């Protein structure tokens, strides 16, 4: 049988494309924004992306199994308020509060998964419900008040290794680990398969339900983790993370993950997060008007998705 192979590996062309887009963006802001190419700009971006990145990793997995998780923002808000309430109102030790925050996130995710899987419901509606529930719970926990956390969590934002903050290292670590799981493990393979054709997976003797359950629970767990970083920076505000789910989905889709399931990459998602973050930081530094910011952000999202369409076509050799 004739079998040739194209030498340039697919993943390389993918990442090169994303990195190129990022480079263009950086160049544009380098010209238009004051002091853009400075150490502090990159530190700001490094400070700003960890929580979104961690949420986006979970969202990538959820989109790959052809689901969606609209509750991540609210769950992050809820976990954060639990941390705050335990630390400040209940005077619990830091480790316990942090654990509890993560566990609450995990619990919400698990519940999303259980309901979705048990009754074969669309995750859109289940997580939409959870979005409201978690937000309601967050308001309840704090009585709608921001809880100020005096210094307990400062070690999270202030620990630096070679100038890089702990949250950023954690986020990058999670991205790499998740990419490994996705592309190199049986679980990753099953996840992609479930998102592609659930019935074919079932008829191959694999139960798709536990896979979906784990993915939703993981998304919740990561939301819990992200909340610790958010809370350490912004205090426990019950409104934290409002609307973040859409920002996260945008980043994931910019990274080329399909909303239809079965296709995605965590590394590309990370690029997507970076692109959005560079865009927002750059626009703010360029002192852009509010309307301009929105116009440009929207246009970049659409352009990125169109770009991805052509990338897919080139990959499949579908010319003309």
């Amino acid at each position, binding site marked *: 049988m004739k079998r040739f192979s194209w030498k340039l590996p697919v993943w390389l062309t993918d990442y090169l494309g994303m990195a190129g887009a990022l480079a263009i963006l950086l160049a544009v802001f380098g010209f238009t924004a*004051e002091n853009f190419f400075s150490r502090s*700009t990159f530190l700001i971006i490094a*400070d700003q992306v960890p929580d979104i990145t961690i949420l986006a990793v979970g969202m990538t997995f959820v989109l790959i199994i052809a689901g969606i998780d609209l509750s991540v923002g609210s769950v992050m808000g809820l976990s954060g308020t639990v941390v705050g309430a335990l630390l400040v109102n209940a005077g619990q030790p830091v480790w316990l509060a942090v654990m509890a925050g993560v566990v609450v996130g995990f619990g919400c995710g698990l519940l999303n998964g259980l309901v979705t899987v048990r*009754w074969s419901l*669309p995750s859109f*509606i289940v997580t939409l419900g959870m979005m409201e529930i978690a937000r309601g719970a967050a308001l309840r926990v704090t009585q709608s008040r921001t809880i100020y956390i005096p210094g307990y969590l400062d070690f999270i934002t202030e620990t630096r290794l070679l100038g890089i903050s702990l949250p950023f290292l954690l986020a990058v670590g999670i991205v790499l680990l998740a990419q490994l799981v996705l592309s190199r493990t049986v679980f990753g393979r099953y996840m992609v398969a479930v998102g592609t054709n659930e019935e074919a997976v079932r008829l191959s003797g694999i139960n798709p339900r536990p896979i979906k359950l784990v993915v939703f629970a993981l998304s919740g767990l990561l939301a819990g983790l992200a909340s610790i970083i958010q809370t350490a920076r*912004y*205090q426990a505000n019950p409104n934290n993370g409002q609307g973040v789910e859409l920002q996260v989905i945008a980043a994931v889709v910019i990274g080329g993950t399909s909303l239809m399931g079965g296709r995605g990459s965590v590394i590309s998602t990370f690029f997507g997060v970076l692109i959005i973050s560079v865009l927002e930081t*750059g626009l*703010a530094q360029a002192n852009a008007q509010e309307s301009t910011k929105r116009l440009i952000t929207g246009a970049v999202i659409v352009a990125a998705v169109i770009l991805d369409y052509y990338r897919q076509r080139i990959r499949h050799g579908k010319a003309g």
Partner: protein
Amino acid sequence: MVAQTFVQDFIEFITKGIQMMETKRSRLPAAGILFLGLMLGIPACARKTPSGPDKPVLALVMKSLANEFFKTMEEGARQHHQERASQYDLKVVGIKNEEDVSQQIKYVETLIAQKVDAIVIAPSDSKALVKVCKQAMEAGIVVVNIDNKLDAEVLASNGIKIPFVGPDNRKGARLAGDYLARRLQAGDAVAIIEGVPNAFNGIQRKLGFEEAMKASGMNIVSSQSGYWETAKANQVAAAILTSHPALKAILCANDSMALGAMAAVKAAGKTSDVHIVGFDNIEAVQTLLREGRILATVDQHGDKLAIYGIEYALDILKGQTTPADKETPVDLITAETLR
């Protein structure tokens, strides 16, 4: 009561659910759950506050009850009502999202249909709510405007007058700005973080800040929206700090955003160089004021604001006052005043 919000959410949920049912496979269980939800939900929605025949019914229409400021306002009102339960009945409704203007209009329409005696409203939009308030007045309902002043021109073109009871946000911001200016030198770079672009009180605060800064000769290098949110404000503040390293102060249109600005200043290692000013005096900033990490904020006595409105409405109902605007106090809060 809060049931109002619940009803709206509930209807939204059911419609979405029905749409989802169109998708294959899940039809049966989804239908089951919706049905269950309906069964449980309807009696909960239908429950009403019992009201005596002779007591006037007052409705307090808020912006987002998820917002600390309005929550405080609501609690103040409830407290007031509890102490005077014999004098009037109180309904409180609040929208989910501060920008959800249409939702608030629908609530007012419902209240008109329910024939309440007075409506005390914190409008989410200073123009869009005028029309429905006019309808309420035409239905014989006393309308009192609190917190966010309805647009004078639109009121005039509709030929109505609605008394406004509330603080002067601009004046409050000016107070904080002047206090800050005393710590700075003329020509220093400062930045403003605004609220949601079209919010009246946000605009007023921004104007107040600007006035104070211009009067003392400061240089406003940037003025951008932080959408009232901590994370968003953090991002904007961090970006401004980078592009203007000589920045000396950030004036924020609310305290949540001040928290975000504070985190940005801290991350940039400039805690001792950059002053932060907020607005609203929420609980979380009080320690920070004492520690000097936030220089000043403004208290517009949210807990009393609704009470002023309610008392004013009761007075009008009793025929004791003729409708006219009434200003409520705004106070500068700093480390010194807290002591």
